[in-house]
């Protein structure tokens, strides 16, 4: 009688078993939009329900240090949506760019963190 769709809740675990996550999404994100050394700005997008983009780097400009892996964005993965993997980028910021009050005595200090492609734009 019931035609209730049964969602396979172990789907994500089974595609990663023996391969690893994010390795299981390798080759699935298509062409990366940015390359190492590119200057990018972190977008400030609404984040309903779940995100892994911190608030403090939003709007800040930094340099792509590395294309790290392909994976569904956390905002999709939280809902078990693994259909559209994206490129992930490690981006380094000068601390002064993130925290205007950061001490001028240490102008070289930096912070590095990762973003999925949707959070970045060319700067």
């Amino acid at each position: 009688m019931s035609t209730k769709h049964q969602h396979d809740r172990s789907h994500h675990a089974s595609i990663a078993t023996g391969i690893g996550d994010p390795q299981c999404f390798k080759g699935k994100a298509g062409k990366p939009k940015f390359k190492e050394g590119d200057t990018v700005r972190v977008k400030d997008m609404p984040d309903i329900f779940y995100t892994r983009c911190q608030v403090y780097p939003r709007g800040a400009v930094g340099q792509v240090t590395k294309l790290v892996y392909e994976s569904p964005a956390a905002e999709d993965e939280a809902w078990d949506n693994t259909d559209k993997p994206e490129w992930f980028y490690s981006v380094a910021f000068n601390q002064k760019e993130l925290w205007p009050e950061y001490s001028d005595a240490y102008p070289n200090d930096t912070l590095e963190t990762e973003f999925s492609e949707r959070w970045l734009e060319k700067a």
Partner: protein
Amino acid sequence: MSEHHHEPAPMVDEVSDFEILEMAVRELAIEKGLFSAEDHRIWTEYVHTLGPTPAARLVAKAWLDPEYKNLCVTDGVEASKAVGVDWINSPPTHFGTPSDYCNLRVLEDTPTLKHVVVCTLCSCYPRPILGQSPEWYRTPNYRRRLVRWPRQVLAEFGLQLPSDVQIRVADSNQKTRYIVMPVRPAGTDGWSEDQLAEIVTRDCLIGVAVPKPGVTSNTMRPIHKAVHPVEHGHGH
């Protein structure tokens, strides 16, 4: 004075929202047959055996072998295999892995660049190669202050760095887990891999300390004799 009757206060353990959430998810997973309660116990028992010694060994090997150092920096998951850590298949439990994700970056310090690791959004930590995170690593205090005032926080750990050393904070917010490869300290010429591994303590691998000859966490603990030893006189 009238007599007061005091109801005993209920004995309640403080349980956080996150602990309740974990219990709810765990019970649901058991109910749905994803794993059994015993599976969960075996997995937890295994994870609690993990510690920072493989990561210390990785750093010591890299200090001695430039080719291996290069592998560490380019492919941390592959390099981990040389120290007995398989990020993808390691648990003897035959299910799960001690890490949610299998991506390790080894951050190489130089004399003018010092890395330190934090997870501002939660407490992501390279558990397969470092074991469980220290309590302070998970505190909001460390997480919110390290990104903004790294020099002050490091100073509280006893690490004061000159201004010509760049501090680079790595905020582990997605699927990468980090360990720090510190600079090999002076005074360690001719040391063996075992000797070098001993000075690479957990805190050096997180980045809040730097290795020093003579400062280890893996040395034998001193055995103190009991001041008042218990006599077991059974009528001999």
